């Protein structure tokens, strides 16, 4: 322990390295779990729970008799009556039927908790649930309810028994909608009879997918951050203890029991790791807090939910955050003790030169790398799941980390042998660099990985964005989209739009969800007109594609469907007709289209076929082809003449803007994190070099004694680090691209069912490299100058007294 008092600067940097690594990891992790919690809060909003609902075709209230009819026909539904409190307009009252609603999982689970509350609710009938705030604002309104506080509910939502709600709202025998508590049967004739229709609360599903992608992004980042952090911890501790081998050997030789030496080492390393770790948690908390407003903004933007601005450190987070430095320190102590054990006393000098063992290890490492590469390759050829994709990315990082020192060493050794004796100083310089690689390879690795991860993720984000934009551009084929809620308006539109001179053309779109192979699948009916043929993006198609869609025999599928079932062009699919349960309809797949931000499989077919076999409902969505300049007059016409609401008219550019905004916000955090990762990695370089400066001194002093001026040595020293770091950074590019490749082609497919086309963005790489080089340059300059600032006499004394 005394060691550290003699070298306070080294100690400082050691702790700094440890805490920064922990900070990086814990902040990512903190943000991740916070975002998740916040999202779960948002989902508690009962009314917005993702579900399938049944409403009246005419948007009226539904007579309660339909409930029994539906149940008898095998539909698992629960009735809901929703309305504003007559006496206080800001409060929404939700009437539920407790028995049937408890069949659903998730829905209201938080409400009843254990069975006790449910029993109370069923028996008493006059219990009301609401958040405290709601109860306060209800005040003493004479509702005749016995209020029970439930903070999982949104403010201004009051839940009570449906019979009670009927009375309060004055809608005797009527309900607003049914919610499905089980999968919808494929026979939908009963809906027609009762004049009802099945609707999916799509918006919620879309949102969920966006968050999922957001989380996946952060999780992937968390994994990468963990690995980089581990490297940093490992390399920091490794160097610190490498220097002390001699002390340990001396202790052993004067008879201190081996075990004492080992336990004290272990304890010391653990204490260091924990100290650094705890400081790191605070730093991480601070970092996360400064980033959190961004995250909150993103989520608020996406959900319109109001997330608190407070980050909470829970025991779990603290535990996870400390896991990394502790794991790293355990790894390093095992390694270190093994090394000590192997080291015979006469090999003491080994520490000055970097270990000889390294020479033999190179073959072992190379073969390990090759085996891992083979494994990765095998993994990529078979089908890839989410876990496997993470695993592959992890493997890639390990392979890159193993290969980096080998490449550096082999490359430099080749150079050494090619110049040999002619230029003695250059020869020394290169040989010395080879040795230097051994010592700083771990921190070079940390730097390379940090940069590679940044390049990989940035490249993916950019790739994603660009593709997404192009796709949006193509997919939003017309200027205006109309999405109406009820069939009356739709009918008006269909009959009237023909005669509007402002509307060049309009294309109805209709869709519903069916179950295919027991999984929810969307089928879409559309009119395969010229405008689609020209614009609709397809990743796979042939000459017959559009002809087959037009004659109704062919369908298009989305990528998700393609990856899910492995069905491609030319394959036949058979779907159950919903209008005629006995009939199976045969289609041939004739094209595949990209469908970002969607998780469900989707089938697009001619609208005639759709209406023949699935639903005769009037389409509610329309694409309107207009002159872009006439957008204002068209929307005015739609508002005034057809009675549409603002929200029912969607401007193409608005969608684009909105999507881009969500997108940018989602990835703003990733960017901030990857930047801090680079900063931390360059700081590791700094820590390493400071720790190393004494070993370096022992290496350089013989040259100074020979008569090489110190300023020359300083130049060499700088040149050497610069060279190594530049090579390292250069190697980070292919590694980053590989990571990007696995992220886009495997992780994405596994998670979302679509593949991003891979593109290169050299500008991003250069930008990242520049930042990293600049950081490294500062990291190099500081310790080198520190090292040469000492008076020359001190240099020789120090070096002679050292060890």
């Amino acid at each position: 322990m005394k060691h550290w008092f003699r070298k306070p600067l080294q100690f400082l940097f050691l702790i700094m390295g440890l805490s920064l690594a922990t900070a990086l990891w814990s902040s990512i992790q903190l943000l991740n779990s916070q975002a998740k919690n916040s999202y779960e809060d948002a989902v508690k909003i009962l009314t917005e729970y993702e579900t399938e609902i049944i409403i009246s075709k005419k948007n009226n209230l539904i007579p309660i008799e339909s409930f029994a009819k539906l149940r008898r026909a095998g539909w698992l539904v629960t009735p809901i009556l929703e309305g504003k409190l007559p006496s206080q307009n800001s409060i929404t009252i939700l009437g539920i039927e407790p028995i049937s609603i408890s069949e659903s999982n998730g829905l209201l689970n938080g409400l009843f908790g254990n069975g006790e509350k449910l029993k109370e609710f069923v028996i008493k009938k006059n219990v009301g649930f609401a958040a405290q705030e709601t109860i306060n604002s209800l005040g003493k309104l004479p509702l005749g309810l016995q209020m029970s506080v439930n903070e999982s509910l949104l403010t201004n939502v009051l839940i009570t028994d449906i019979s009670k709600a009927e009375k309060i709202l004055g809608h005797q025998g009527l309900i607003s909608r049914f919610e499905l508590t089980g999968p919808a049967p494929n026979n939908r004739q009963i809906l027609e009879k009762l004049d009802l229709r099945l609707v999916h609360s799509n918006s919620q599903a879309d949102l969920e997918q966006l968050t999922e992608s957001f989380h996946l992004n952060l999780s992937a980042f968390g994994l990468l951050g963990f690995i980089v952090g581990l490297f940093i911890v490992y390399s920091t501790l490794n160097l610190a203890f490498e220097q002390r081998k001699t002390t340990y050997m001396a202790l052993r030789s004067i008879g201190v029991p081996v075990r004492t030496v080992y336990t004290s080492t272990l304890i010391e390393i653990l204490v260091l790791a924990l100290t650094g770790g705890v400081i790191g948690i605070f730093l991480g908390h601070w970092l996360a807090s400064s980033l959190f407003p961004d995250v909150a903004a993103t989520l608020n933007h996406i959900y319109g939910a109001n997330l608190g601005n407070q980050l909470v450190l829970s025991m779990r987070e603290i535990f996870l955050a400390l896991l990394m430095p502790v794991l790293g320190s355990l790894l390093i102590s095992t390694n270190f003790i093994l090394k000590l054990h192997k080291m015979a006393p006469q090999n003491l000098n080994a520490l000055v030169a970097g270990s000889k063992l390294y020479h033999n290890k190179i073959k072992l490492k190379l073969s390990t790398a090759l085996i891992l590469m083979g494994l990765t390759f095998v993994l990529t050829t078979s089908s890839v799941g989410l876990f496997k994709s993470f695993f592959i990315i992890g493997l890639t990082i390990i392979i890159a980390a193993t290969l980096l020192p080998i490449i550096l060493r082999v490359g430099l050794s080749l150079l050494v042998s090619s110049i040999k004796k002619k230029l003695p100083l250059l020869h020394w310089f290169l040989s010395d660099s080879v040795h230097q690689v051994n010592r700083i390879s771990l921190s070079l690795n940390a730097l390379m990985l940090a940069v590679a991860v940044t390049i990989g993720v940035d490249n993916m984000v950019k790739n994603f964005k660009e593709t997404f934009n192009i796709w949006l551009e193509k997919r939003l084929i017309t200027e205006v989209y109309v999405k109406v809620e009820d069939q009356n308006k739709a009918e008006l539109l269909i009959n009237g739009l023909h005669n509007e001179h402002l509307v060049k053309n309009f294309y109805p779109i209709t869709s519903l969800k069916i179950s295919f192979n027991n999984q929810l699948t969307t089928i879409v009916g559309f009119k395969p007109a010229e405008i689609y043929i020209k614009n609709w993006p397809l990743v796979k198609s042939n000459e017959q594609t559009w002809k087959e869609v037009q004659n109704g025999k062919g369908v298009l599928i989305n990528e998700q469907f393609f990856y899910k079932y492995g069905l491609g062009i030319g394959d036949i699919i058979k779907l159950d007709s919903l209008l005629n349960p006995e009939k199976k309809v045969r289609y041939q797949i004739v094209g595949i289209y990209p469908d970002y931000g969607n998780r469900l499989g989707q089938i697009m077919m001619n609208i005639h076929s759709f209406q023949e076999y699935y639903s005769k409902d009037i389409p509610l969505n329309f694409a309107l082809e207009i002159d872009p300049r006439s957008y204002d007059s068209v929307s005015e016409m739609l508002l005034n003449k057809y009675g549409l609401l603002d929200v029912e008219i969607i401007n193409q550019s608005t969608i684009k803007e909105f999507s881009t905004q969500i997108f940018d916000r989602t990835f703003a955090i990733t960017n901030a994190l990857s930047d801090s990762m680079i900063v931390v990695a360059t700081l590791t370089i700094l820590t390493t070099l400071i720790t190393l400066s004494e070993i370096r001194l022992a290496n350089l002093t013989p040259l100074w004694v020979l008569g090489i001026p110190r300023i020359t040595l300083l130049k060499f020293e700088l040149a050497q680090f610069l060279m190594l770091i530049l090579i390292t950074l250069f190697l980070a590019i292919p590694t980053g691209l590989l990571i990007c490749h696995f992220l886009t082609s495997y992780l994405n497919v596994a998670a979302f069912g679509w593949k991003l086309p891979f593109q290169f963005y050299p500008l991003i790489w250069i930008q990242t490299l520049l930042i990293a080089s600049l950081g490294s340059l500062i990291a190099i300059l500081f310790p080198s100058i520190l090292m040469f600032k000492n008076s020359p006499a001190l240099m020789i004394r120090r070096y002679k007294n050292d060890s």
Partner: protein
Amino acid sequence: MEPLVKVNDLSKSFESSGEIFQVFEELSFSLAQNSATALIGESGSGKTTLINILAGLEPPSSGMVMIARNEIWNYREPDRARFRLKNMAVIFQQYNLIPSLNVSSNISLHSQLIDNWDQSFQDELIKLFGLKNLLMKYPEEISGGQQQRVAIARSVLTKPKILLADEPTGNLDEENTMSVLKAFEMLLERCKSTILVATHSKSVASKIKSKLILESGRAKK
């Protein structure tokens, strides 16, 4: 003939924890060109310190050091280093070698740096010191005595004007000590070098006629 090394009123003191410790005071002596001198004195008498000062590695507290008419302590540090590179060779007790170069490169480095490399002389020295089998090894892989011999071979190979050696035979057996003395003789004969050897070894001291004795801060010839 004018002496190659002239030392006048050389004093050296160290200041440690507030106290001033005088190693030697007003030391004056000279070393003739093409001569060998043994530097003798008990442990702690200042031999290493003197050699460091002569080599230009550690500054004296006062006094003058003149080597081949160069007053080395008036030079700027880089010039002093270059002067050392060209004219001197220094052998220490330990850690003379460059860890990242193998034995062969270590031996040739200095002479190559001053463009003074002589293949046949190198072969001769390698044979003399029995280093043939070690050439491809790295310093960490050879013993202390072997390292010492490599360092001596390197220094001799540069054919220096002045060779400063601090206990060069400390780690060596009798046979190797004889080889070292033989190599010094070669330098004296072929290169007209001037040699100063700090040593505790009786056998080395007995082979070198001229002696410089450090005793309680004074020098005796």
